[in-house]
């Protein structure tokens, strides 16, 4: 990607989070511009209260949100991310916590792509494990799939029990 110097905070996981961050940043940019216009050249000393995601985004990327070029650069980066970032859909049997998702997100950004975005799904039928869907493939690491793959073993076990009962 073009903005390699920018990092995404771990709490920004999905494309929805990125869009939300971009909307907030755009709103902030608009607010600062309006304030600058209203103040007729007066310097804006402080920013309005922003979300923890935006705070972390600006912090880890050393962006000064009072500077217009930093805000524009951040917005452009987020636009690029919305358009081109790789997206994976990962589903669990139950709703994951934020902490849990940050660990998953960290693994993806460390091992696969630093700008990967994750969409979380809920699939109770898998019981345990997870399923992963990319643009190309569907990976099933669920307990259900594990059971299906070992169905022959279960059938053989049933047969063994049946034969034992028959012989006895």
């Amino acid at each position, binding site marked *: 990607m073009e903005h390699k110097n920018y990092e995404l905070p771990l709490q920004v996981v999905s494309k929805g989070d990125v869009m939300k961050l971009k909307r907030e940043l755009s709103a902030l940019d608009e607010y600062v511009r309006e304030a600058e216009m209203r103040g007729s050249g007066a310097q804006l000393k402080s920013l309005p209260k922003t979300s923890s995601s935006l705070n972390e985004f600006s912090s880890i990327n050393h962006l000064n949100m009072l500077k217009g070029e930093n805000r524009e650069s951040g917005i452009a980066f987020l636009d690029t991310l919305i358009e081109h970032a790789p997206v994976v859909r990962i589903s669990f049997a139950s709703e994951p916590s934020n902490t*849990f998702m940050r660990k998953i997100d960290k693994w993806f950004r460390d091992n*696969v*792509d630093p700008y990967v975005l994750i969409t979380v799904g809920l699939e109770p039928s898998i*019981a345990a494990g997870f399923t992963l869907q*990319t643009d190309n*493939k569907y990976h099933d690491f669920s*307990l259900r799939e594990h059971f299906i793959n070992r169905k022959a073993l279960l059938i053989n076990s049933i047969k063994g029990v049946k034969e034992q009962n028959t012989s006895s």
Partner: protein
Amino acid sequence: MTIWWLIVILVTLGTIGIAVVWLIAKFSHLAQNDSKRGVNQLLDSANTDVEHIFNDEFREELRNRGRLHFEKIIGENAMFLQQDLRLTTSQLNEYMKQELSSTLRQEFSKYEESITDAKQLAIDSIEKTKQTIEEQRSLLGEQLSSEVAAEKQRLIERFEQNMADIINHYVLDAIGKQIDLNDQLEYILSELEANKHAIAEDISHGA
């Protein structure tokens, strides 16, 4: 000269011959007329005598005798004819009896033979049918046995499959809600790590 004499002699002889033939014919015609006339006279005299001899009484007598003789002959012939008729009738009856008996015997024999043949045919047919039925029964029995065995195997396999599905469903339903997602984190990360290259490749191709 000699030839002329010879011709004259031959002509003379011919003329004499013709004259002789004419005379003979003339004489024979006259003789025939005389004999006819004599015969007619004899016949007339015979008829006259016959009329005298065979008068009406004699004729009646002859007629009566002839009638009696004729009746006697008719009676004798009728008796002979009756005897012959009786004999013929009895012989005919005997002959008819024999013929009828013989024919009936032959017909009965043929009929009996036909019945025997038909009976044999029926027995053969029944035997063949019985044999065919036995073969069909055997074949059907084998088919039924194999079908039953196959169906039994199918049912067992279906039962095993269903049983496996039931057990899987039961286990998934029973433990699914009991496993905390945080406890699975290590497993999930290890699975991701194990398939890291495949996932990275998918994402890089898809991006």
